């Protein structure tokens, strides 16, 4: 499990996390992802390929959201409906605010 950083469209920094996000993996992933947001104008966290996602993942999203807010960067999560991450984010009431169905929607949301 690693964080892949890609320069996306419209100056957006795209962070892609795959595999399992749980209490074991979330700590290092959170650190890596937080580091990757430094200097970004806007951040999209792509969780569309995670195979497991729990409250540790929710904590990760929460940390990133706070970090981006501190840096004045916009933040959205790419977590399409039906995916593992969206299910959990919706359960804790964060999906409605942060989750986007695809990258285009995220770009629109961040403009």
């Amino acid at each position: 499990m690693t964080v892949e950083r890609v320069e996306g469209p419209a100056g957006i920094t795209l962070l892609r996390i795959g595999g399992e996000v749980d209490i074991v993996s979330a700590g290092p992933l959170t650190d890596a992802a937080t580091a990757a947001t430094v200097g970004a104008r806007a951040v999209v966290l792509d969780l569309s390929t995670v195979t497991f996602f729990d409250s540790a993942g929710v904590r990760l999203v929460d940390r990133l959201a706070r970090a981006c807010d501190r840096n004045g960067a916009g933040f959205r999560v790419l977590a399409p409906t039906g995916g593992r991450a969206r299910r959990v984010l919706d359960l804790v009431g964060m999906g409605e605010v942060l989750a986007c169905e695809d990258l285009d929607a995220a770009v629109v949301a961040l403009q």
Partner: protein
Amino acid sequence: MSAAADAPWDDAPCGLVTLARDGTVLAANRVLWEWTGRAADDVVGKVPLSALLSVGGRIYWETHLAPLLEVEGRVDEVAVELRVRDGRLPVLLTAVVGGDRVHAAISSARDRMSYERELLAARVAAERASGQLQALQATTAALSRALGVAGVAQALLAAAVDQLGAAAATLWLADEEARLVHGATGEPPAGLPSSGVLLRGESAAPDGGRTVVPLQGQSGLRGVLSLAPRTDAAADPLDAEVLTAVGQQAGLALDRAQLYEQSANVARELQHSLLAGEPPVDERFSVATVYRPGVELLEVGGDFYDVFLAAEGLLAVVVGDVVGRGLGAASAMGQLRSAVRAVAGPGVGPGRLLTRLDRFVEQVETAGMSTLAYAELDLATGVLRYACAGHPPPLLLRTGQDAELLWEGRSTPLGAFVRPLERSEAEVQLTPGDRLLLCTDGLFERRDREIDEGLALVAQATEGSHGVPLDEAVRSLTSRLLADESTRDDVCVLLLQWTAGDFDRHLSADLTGLSALRHDLAAWLVAQDVAPGIAEDLVLATSEALANAAEHGSGLHPGEQVHLRVRLADAAHETAEVVVQVADRGRWRTGASSHERGRGLTIIGALVDDVTVDDRDGTRVVLRKRLAP
């Protein structure tokens, strides 16, 4: 007449007599006078010949012979009786009319009569002897056909009345302690013969109006047959010699029967002890077996079954059929059964197991051409791998579906000359509650029907057996299929049910292995027929609970453990639910991380129907999720 002239007349080897035409005796030779004891002076010219005959002879003379002489002029060899000094003498009378005289010759028939009587007696005796020989042969044949001591006793009692001419019979048999036990036919058991008769030994002997036949075996008196004679007029008396011979035959037959029973008992005990082992205990499966010896109870066959763990969590079931009967087949069965256990193991698999058994069978000739069905069930996943060496296919019984014969994974009987280098095997995924039936061909094979037809009957007989407890299901199936009693073969049936059991794991509190555990749990839930969406939610909820327990109860300390137990409750009903219990030895602390722990609990609460926390002894969290929509 001169003396010289009288000599041929007087010395003739028969009585000679000259009569007047009216029958009056005119002259007779000395032979006649000596026979009759009469003086010539009293007779000659005074009495007729008929007066010298018996009453019957006189009547015969007057009514038949005299008229015949008148008409024919002669009579030849007429049997009459002459009155003689000490009674009557049978004679043959020949008479010829010559002018006014009748010349008669009378020869004694005493010797001839007794000869004829002897001839008749000899013929009767010969016929009786032949009848007795037949009776003896029939009795011997019946005795040698009989199986076991009880069979010999029955044959002997039947023969006593049917063949040996007794009205009724009682049999006394010496048991193991040399006491007499008895049975009877045609009468209530008669009293014990007198001990004197028994002591007299080996021959049939009269005893108070009955005939007592000792039955001598090689090592002493086996028993006593006591016969009541028939009282009707046509009955022949019981023949002591025949009865003595029957007694000897019966004694030997009882010897053989006892030896046979001993050997059959050894074989049966051997077989029972070989089949008696306790199956392994594991809540993830149940197994029930039936072994029924052939109709002839003394015959022991080579059918067997076995249930054992081939490896941790890998259940092996086997049903086999060794060719032949009796002690040889039973001991070959024992060896083959042990060989299966010895060969089975982690990573071997059904196909390779059969290949290795081929090699074993080549060294144990009596096990050659044995057939075998072998299956391995992964108790965690329900994956069943199986192979059949010339054996009837296993029958898969799934809830709510038709029984399915597993025709894959087949190859020739063990040790067959023509056989594949590598034996094939097949795999099928069981779902919890599925049952698997293994049996030997005695269950369904009959002379008068095809094998496919028999297998179809087995499948048919399993209908509606789901939900019936395993023991009862296998028993009723067997008794239904064997109701016709037309098989002499022994029968072995094994019914296995996979119930998956609980998902029970310990997890190190540093959460090493959490990911693998989630995958195993997901597989387990799918194997319980839990819908994929519900399974995902349950895995997530369980993972949250485990993480909470490890983090807040045990401080992620690697020395601590978290215990997880997941079970399916009420699986057969609408109230079916999955119950997850997570236990640790610590106490969920409140404090800095309580907010985030709360978030985990929020997720859990949203995913399952009920959450309870019990922290009286460590912390136990129980989650319940109903399966019905």
